[in-house]
C-alpha cells in the first residue's frame, strides 16, 4: 500500500508544471553559479601562485634580512576550493596580510577591492539552497493535504482502507524524494562540470566535507518540506496555506538571520577595533619611551645586557597588548554568541552557520584564522632570532668588514622559512563545531513532522 501511495505522489509531482519549473530553475541556477564562482576561484588560484612566486623571488634576491624583524612578512591564505559553494567570509580571510611584530593584522576586504561585493551577497550554492531551495520546498508541500482536500481526492483516498499515518508518510517520502533528487543531481553535475572545465580539484578530505555539506542541505530542505506539510495540514484551503507558508518563510529566511546580528550589536556593544589598536600602540609607545628615558643609565651596559633588556621589554609589550586584545576579543565573542543565539530559532541561520563552517569559510574559521596568524607570527619571529643568531656567529669568524656585512644581509633560505598554511579542520572538529546547528535542524525536522502528523490525524475531511 505504502509503495503504491509513494508512487502516486512521485508521479503526480513529476507530471506537474511545478516540477519542471523547479527542476529547470534549480539546474540553471546551480550549474551557472558553481561554474561562475569556480572560474573566479581559478583566477584566485593563479593570483595566489603569482603572489607566492613573486614573494619568493624577492626573498631570494633581497638583502633585507635585518629589516624583516620590523617589516615582517607578507602572507596570504591559499584559496579554499570549497568556498565556491559557500563564499562566507572567504573574501575577508584570503587577502594578503603583513604579519609583523609592530603592526596589527588587517583582515577584511582589501582597500582596493570592488565595493559591489559588499553591496550584494554571493550567489553561491549556500545562498541558492538557503533562499531558493527553502522556498521551493515549501512550494512542493504547501498543498499536499489541503490541496487534495479541495480537489476532493483526499476523501476518495480515505475511503479505502489506508491508515492516515501511511498517507502522510507516503506524501512525505514521495514529495521529498522528488524535491531532493533533482537538487542533488544538479549539484553533482555542476561540480563535475566545474572540475572538468576549471582548475578546481578536490582532495579526499574535501570530498568528505562536500558530501557533508550536501547532507546538511538535504536536512535543511526537509525541515522546510515538513514545515510546509504541517501548515498544509493545519489549513483547509491551498490559497490560505500558501499565504501562511510565504509569511513564515519570509520571517524565518529573510528576517531573523539578517536582523539578529544588528540587534546583537545594539544589545551587546563592542568598542570599535580602531580604539583597541590605538590602545595597544599607546602601550608600545609608553614602554619604549620608558626605555629611552633610561638610556642614559645604559651607557655602561654591555651589548648582551642591552639585548636582554630589549627582549624583556618586548616580552612586556607582548604581555600587556595581549591582555588588551584578549579582553577585547572576549567582548567580540560575546557579541557573536549573542547574535548566533538570537538567530537560532530560524533553520536558515543554523544552516548557514553549519555549512559555512564545514566549507571552511565560517565564523569558526575566521576565529581560528586569527590564531593561525598569531602562531605564525611567533614562529616567524623565532625563526628570525635563530637565523640572526646563526648569522652573527658565522660573521664573527670573518675578518673583512664587507664580507661580514654580506653574510648578515644574505638572502633568506626559503626552505628554513616557516610556511604560512591554513589547514582544513578535521571531520571530527567540524562535527563538534556544527553539532548544535545540526541538532537543531534535526529537532526542527522532527517537530514539524510531528506537528504535521498530529494535525493530520485530527484533520476534518468533511468541513
Amino acid at each position, binding site marked *: 500500500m505504502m509503495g503504491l501511495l509513494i508512487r502516486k505522489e512521485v508521479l503526480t509531482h513529476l507530471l506537474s508544471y511545478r516540477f519542471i519549473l523547479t527542476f529547470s530553475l534549480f539546474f540553471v541556477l546551480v550549474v551557472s553559479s558553481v561554474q561562475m564562482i569556480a572560474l573566479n576561484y581559478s583566477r584566485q588560484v593563479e593570483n595566489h601562485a603569482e603572489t607566492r612566486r613573486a614573494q619568493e623571488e624577492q626573498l631570494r634576491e633581497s638583502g633585507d634580512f635585518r629589516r624583516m624583524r620590523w617589516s615582517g612578512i607578507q602572507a596570504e591564505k591559499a584559496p579554499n576550493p570549497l568556498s565556491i559553494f559557500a563564499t562566507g567570509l572567504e573574501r575577508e580571510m584570503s587577502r594578503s596580510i603583513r604579519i609583523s611584530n609592530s603592526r596589527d593584522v588587517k583582515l577584511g576586504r582589501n582597500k582596493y577591492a570592488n*565595493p559591489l561585493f559588499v553591496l550584494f551577497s554571493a550567489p553561491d550554492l549556500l545562498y541558492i539552497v538557503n533562499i531558493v531551495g527553502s522556498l521551493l520546498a515549501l512550494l512542493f508541500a504547501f498543498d499536499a493535504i489541503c490541496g487534495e482536500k479541495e480537489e476532493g481526492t483526499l476523501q476518495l483516498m480515505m475511503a479505502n482502507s489506508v491508515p492516515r499515518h501511511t498517507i502522510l508518510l507516503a506524501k512525505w517520502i514521495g514529495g521529498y524524494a522528488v524535491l531532493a533528487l533533482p537538487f542533488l543531481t544538479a549539484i553533482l553535475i555542476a561540480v563535475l562540470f566545474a572540475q572538468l572545465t576549471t582548475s578546481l580539484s578536490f582532495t579526499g578530505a574535501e570530498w568528505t566535507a562536500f558530501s557533508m555539506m550536501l547532507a546538511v542541505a538535504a536536512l535543511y530542505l526537509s525541515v522546510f518540506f515538513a514545515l510546509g506539510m504541517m501548515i498544509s495540514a493545519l489549513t483547509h484551503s491551498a490559497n490560505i496555506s500558501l499565504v501562511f507558508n510565504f509569511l513564515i518563510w519570509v520571517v524565518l529566511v529573510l528576517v531573523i538571520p539578517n536582523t539578529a546580528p544588528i540587534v546583537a550589536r545594539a544589545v551587546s556593544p563592542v568598542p570599535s577595533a580602531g580604539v583597541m589598536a590605538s590602545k595597544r600602540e599607546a602601550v608600545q609607545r609608553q614602554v619604549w619611551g620608558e626605555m629611552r628615558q633610561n638610556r642614559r643609565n645604559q651607557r655602561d651596559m654591555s651589548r648582551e645586557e642591552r639585548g636582554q633588556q630589549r627582549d624583556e621589554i618586548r616580552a612586556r609589550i607582548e604581555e600587556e597588548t595581549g591582555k588588551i586584545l584578549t579582553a577585547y576579543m572576549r567582548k567580540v565573542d560575546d557579541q557573536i554568541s549573542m547574535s548566533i543565539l538570537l538567530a537560532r530559532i530560524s533553520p536558515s541561520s543554523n544552516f548557514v552557520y553549519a555549512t559555512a563552517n564545514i566549507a571552511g569559510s565560517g565564523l569558526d574559521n575566521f576565529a581560528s584564522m*586569527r590564531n593561525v596568524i598569531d602562531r605564525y607570527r611567533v614562529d616567524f619571529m623565532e625563526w628570525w632570532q635563530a637565523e640572526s643568531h646563526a648569522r652573527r656567529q658565522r660573521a664573527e669568524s670573518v675578518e673583512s668588514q664587507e664580507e661580514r656585512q654580506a653574510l648578515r644581509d644574505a638572502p633568506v633560505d626559503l626552505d628554513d622559512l616557516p610556511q604560512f598554511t591554513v589547514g582544513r579542520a578535521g571531520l571530527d572538529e567540524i562535527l563538534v563545531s556544527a553539532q548544535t546547528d545540526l541538532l537543531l535542524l534535526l529537532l526542527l525536522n522532527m517537530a514539524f513532522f510531528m506537528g504535521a502528523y498530529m494535525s493530520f490525524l485530527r484533520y476534518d475531511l468533511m468541513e
Partner: protein
Amino acid sequence: MLWVMIRKECLNNLLELRFLVCGGLCIFLAVVSVVVLRADLATKQADYHSNREIYRTEAEEYGGYENLAREGIRVDRPPQNFQVLFYGTEKTLDRTAVVSRDFLPGFEGSSAGNPIVLLFPAADMLFIVGVVLSLLAFFISYDAVAGERERGTLKLLMSYPLPRDTLILAKWIGGYLSLALPFLIALGIGALLIGISGEITFTTEDWQAFVVSGLVSLILIAVMFSIGLFISVLVRNSSTALMSLLAIWVLLALIIPNAGPYIAEVAAPIPAPGAVERLISERIKEVNDQFRQEWGGGGRGRGGRRGMRDMSTEQRAELFQQMQQRREALRKEVNKVTEEIIRDYEQRLRHQVDIARTITRLSPVASYAYANTDIGETGVRHERNLVNGLRAYQRQFSRYILEQQADAVGFGDQEDEDYRIDDMPVFKLRAESLAGRLTARTTDVLLLAVFAVLFFMAAFVSFLRTDIT
C-alpha cells in the same frame, strides 16, 4: 465606469487574507528594520565621535611632528544617516584608516572584528522593497486576470458593456494602489521613527533624498506589478502563473543583481589587490634606490654626522635645508609613482563595476539598488567619494606637517618643544549634492520607468488580444 472597477479591485484586494498578511508583514518589517538600524546608527555615531577624540589624544602624545607624520592619524569611516534605510556598503568591516605622510590611505578592517553581518544580506528598506515587496507584487498580481478567468467572473465582466482597456487599466490601478498603500504606510512610519529619534538628524536635503528614494521605490513596485499582471494575462491558469512568477522573482531579485560582480570579475579581470600592493612597493623601492644613487655620494662625502661637528651654524642650517628639500622631492616622486599605479588600477576597477552594472541592469531590482544606494550615499559612488576625501585629507595633512616643520632644524625623531596640533586639519567628508547623485543615477531611474511602461503596455496589449473563452 473606471472608477467603479478600481473600487471593486481595491475592495477585492483589501478584503483578502493574503493582502492583510502581506501588508502587515511589510509594515512590520519596515518598523523592525528602521528601529534596529537606527539603534545601530546611534552606536556608530557615538563611536565615531568618541573615537575621534581618542585618536586626537593619541596624536598629541606623539610629541613631535616627524613622529606624527610617520605614524599618522587614524580616521574612522563617518557613519551615513541613510544607513537606516539603505544599509549598502555600510556593512563593511573596514572602518579605520591611518592617514600618514608616506602611504596612500584607505579604510581597513582589523582581524578583531565581528564578521557575522557579512554572512547575510542586511534587512533594510532596500531589501524589503527589492526582495519582499517585489515578491508581494507578484503575489497580488498573479491571479488578477488568470484567477478571474478560472473562476469564470472574467466572462461575466466582459458580458457588460465594458471596454477591455478600462478593465485592464482598472486592474492595474486597483492592484497598484493596494500595493502602494502598505508601502506608503511603512515609509510614513519609517519617516516618523527617524523624525522623532533624538540621535539622528536628517537635514532638509536628507529628507528630499528620502522622498526621491520613496518615489524610486514606487516605480520599482510598478515594474514588478506590471510584470505580474502581464504573466497573469499570458498564462491561462493561476497556479502556473504563480510558479512562473516565482521563478522570475528568483532570477530578478535574488540572482541577477548578485551575480553581476562575479560575472564582471571574469569578463573584465583586474589585477589582484595584493599584486597592486606589490607593484607599488617595488616601484617605491626603485625610486628610493635611484634617489640614493643620485645623492648618496654627496651626502656621505661630507662625512655624515661626524663631518657636521666641524661645520659652522650656517653651514649646518644649509645642510639641513638641503636634506629637507631632498626628502620632500623623494616623497613627491614616491607619491607620484604610487598614484599613477593606483589611478590606473582604479580606472580598471571602475570599468569592472560599470560592466557589472550594465549586465545586471537586466533586472529592475538591480537598477533599483544602484539608484537608491547612491541617492542615500551608501553605495559605490559613496565609496569612491570616501577614498577621494581621504586622499584629499592626506594632502592637507602633509601640507600641515610641512608647514610646521618648515622652521624646525633636525633629523626628526626628536620631540618638538612647541608640538601643538590644535590647528591640525580635521577629516571632513564633503557630501555630494542630491542633484549630482541623481544625475549620476539617471540611467537607472529612467530604465526603471521604461520597464514600468513597457511591461504595462505588454499586459495591456496582450489583454486586448486575449481569448476569453
